[in-house]
């Protein structure tokens, strides 16, 4: 187990370095000068040249790269071209919002998705199952912005229960979390139902019933833990996706999260900010799959090595 974890960590580091390198090179070989974009059309050549030199963009690529890596390792991600503030500070604020939103959305998706999936599996082919699965299909196929606007219309505009947008209080996170988690909830529900129904056909379910275990006992002690293995993997991958930022949800609800920051960085050719946001997104995905592996090993003794 320890060995495989170390193995995975090294793998993660390699992937991370690769992504940093690719982003770095890509951002510098695309045509157009970021300084020109930043200064606007009316900047004169001399100023642009001076700024380019100041930011080190006239140096050879390899020098730039090592300078970048060494400052990243020290925790310095540079200063945003377009916003003029330290990237780490911008990212910190945005990530706090994204983290809150992602965790709430994931919580919503897991509770609703698992609940519906289990209920559907237990009531297989009954009306309630069909209704729930139909709804979850709607959850999967409904675009986020549609769900978001629908929620805003009903709960903010009509009922006045929750704010339309903004993150002044915790209430502001509820609607975006539901809009964002909606889709994931549908996926979790469908997968939970499928795997649970498969698991309930297994021989060891008969064994459990043959020793006198009741329906609930069979479900909780024998079926769920086995059925959760693939669902758990999907849920951690979903979480890492959520943590990388949610552009549409953040935009519709005016939340200053990582997703919006990334869009800003792209449109402003803001190299330091873009590098940081893509680094974060990669980091989250890697962290997610690492977490999935660990959870899998905890839940499934067959995966654990060295015993």
């Amino acid at each position: 187990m320890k060995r495989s974890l170390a193995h995975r960590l090294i793998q993660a580091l390699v992937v991370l370095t690769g992504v940093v390198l690719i982003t770095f090179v890509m951002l510098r070989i695309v045509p157009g000068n970021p300084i020109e974009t930043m200064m606007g059309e009316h900047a004169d050549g001399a100023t642009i040249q001076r700024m380019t030199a100041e930011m080190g963009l006239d140096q050879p690529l390899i020098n730039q790269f090592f300078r970048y890596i060494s400052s990243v390792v020290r925790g310095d991600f540079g200063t945003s071209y377009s916003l003029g503030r330290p990237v780490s500070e911008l990212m910190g604020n945005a990530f706090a919002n994204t983290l809150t939103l992602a965790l709430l959305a994931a919580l919503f998706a897991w509770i609703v998705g698992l609940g519906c999936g289990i209920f559907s599996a237990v009531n297989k082919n009954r009306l309630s199952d069909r209704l729930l699965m139909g709804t979850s299909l709607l959850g999967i196929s409904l675009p986020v912005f549609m769900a978001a606007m629908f929620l805003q219309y009903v709960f903010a505009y009509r009922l006045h229960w929750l704010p339309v947008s903004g993150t002044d209080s915790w209430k502001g996170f509820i609607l975006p979390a539901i809009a964002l988690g909606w889709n994931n909830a549908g996926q979790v529900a469908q997968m939970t139902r499928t795997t649970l129904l498969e698991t309930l056909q297994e021989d060891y379910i008969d064994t459990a019933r043959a020793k006198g275990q009741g329906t609930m006992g069979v479900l909780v002690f024998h079926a769920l833990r086995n059925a959760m293995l693939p669902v758990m993997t999907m849920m951690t991958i979903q979480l890492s996706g959520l943590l990388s930022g949610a552009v549409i949800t953040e935009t519709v609800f005016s939340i200053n999260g990582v997703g919006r920051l990334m869009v800003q960085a792209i449109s402003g050719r803001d190299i330091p900010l873009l590098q940081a946001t893509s680094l974060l997104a990669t980091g989250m995905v890697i962290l997610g799959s690492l977490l999935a592996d660990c959870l899998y090993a905890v839940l499934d003794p067959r995966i654990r090595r060295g015993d």
Partner: protein
Amino acid sequence: MERMTLEVRHLFVRFRTEKGVITPVNDVSLQVPEGSIVGIVGESACGKSMTARAVMGLVRAPGEVTGGEIILCGRDIASLPEKARRQLRGSEISMIFQEPMTSLNPVMKVGKQVAEAVLLHSRCTWREARERTLAAFRDVEIPEPEARFDCYPHQLSGGLRQRVMIAMATVCKPRLLIADEPTTALDVTVEAQILKLLEKLRDASTSVLLISHNLGVIARVCDRVYVMYAGQIVEQAETEVLFKRPLHPYTQGLFWSVSSLREGCETLKTIPGVVPNLRHLPEGCSFSLRCDRCVAACEKEAPGLVEIEPGHAVRCLLATR
């Protein structure tokens, strides 16, 4: 009069499917006397396992028990509500399955799985349940029971897993153990050990209903045998009688397909054809399609089970003439 641990009377199991109704268990009656091992033998899909499941109350939808009595130690359990049935499972009547590889929960320690049965049926602490589990492990001759307790199924061999299954089924000292092909997935030496365990259980006053397609296994341990074909009992007798004088052409066919090898025949004698589709059973005797002695009457009239001599009954028009 012998006391019966289990008496099944006129049991029916039906499956309602979209293509029609099938009856995998069709008017089955059998008896398991106290302190005996009774065998059910037959080809795959003849209704052996379904009979066992019906006795356990474990028939899965869309199947259901549609008639008959299941009398366990003098009490009809077929009419009991599910909750009462559940309390009997694992304590009074228990079952082991064919595939020890897949019959244990892969993510739960085997000791815990056995202790679960103890905790379900008696008010006791975890420590006591553990002690009883270890005792059951010793009874089924699992080496180093303490160490095995914390093993997961994948860490044990097939034979050990089947021993764990037997320990689980017998830890509450049931009156009846149903063993559904318990040795089919195991190699021959392990099979012999498992059969010895079943005999040991019988001597400790647990009756055993042993389901098998292996006549060798049946001959070794069973006191009495029921032969099943297409959902019906076609012949029943004491093991010795049945092996000496099989009357039903199907039973004879089963013996030939074993003994033809032993007697040095060049070719293996088999019963032609396969078990008929239960949806399209022939009108008369269900074996008529495959029977080499089939006469016109066999295709018209479904024979009843007729006692030829005390304890030996057969469902065949020719044998009863």
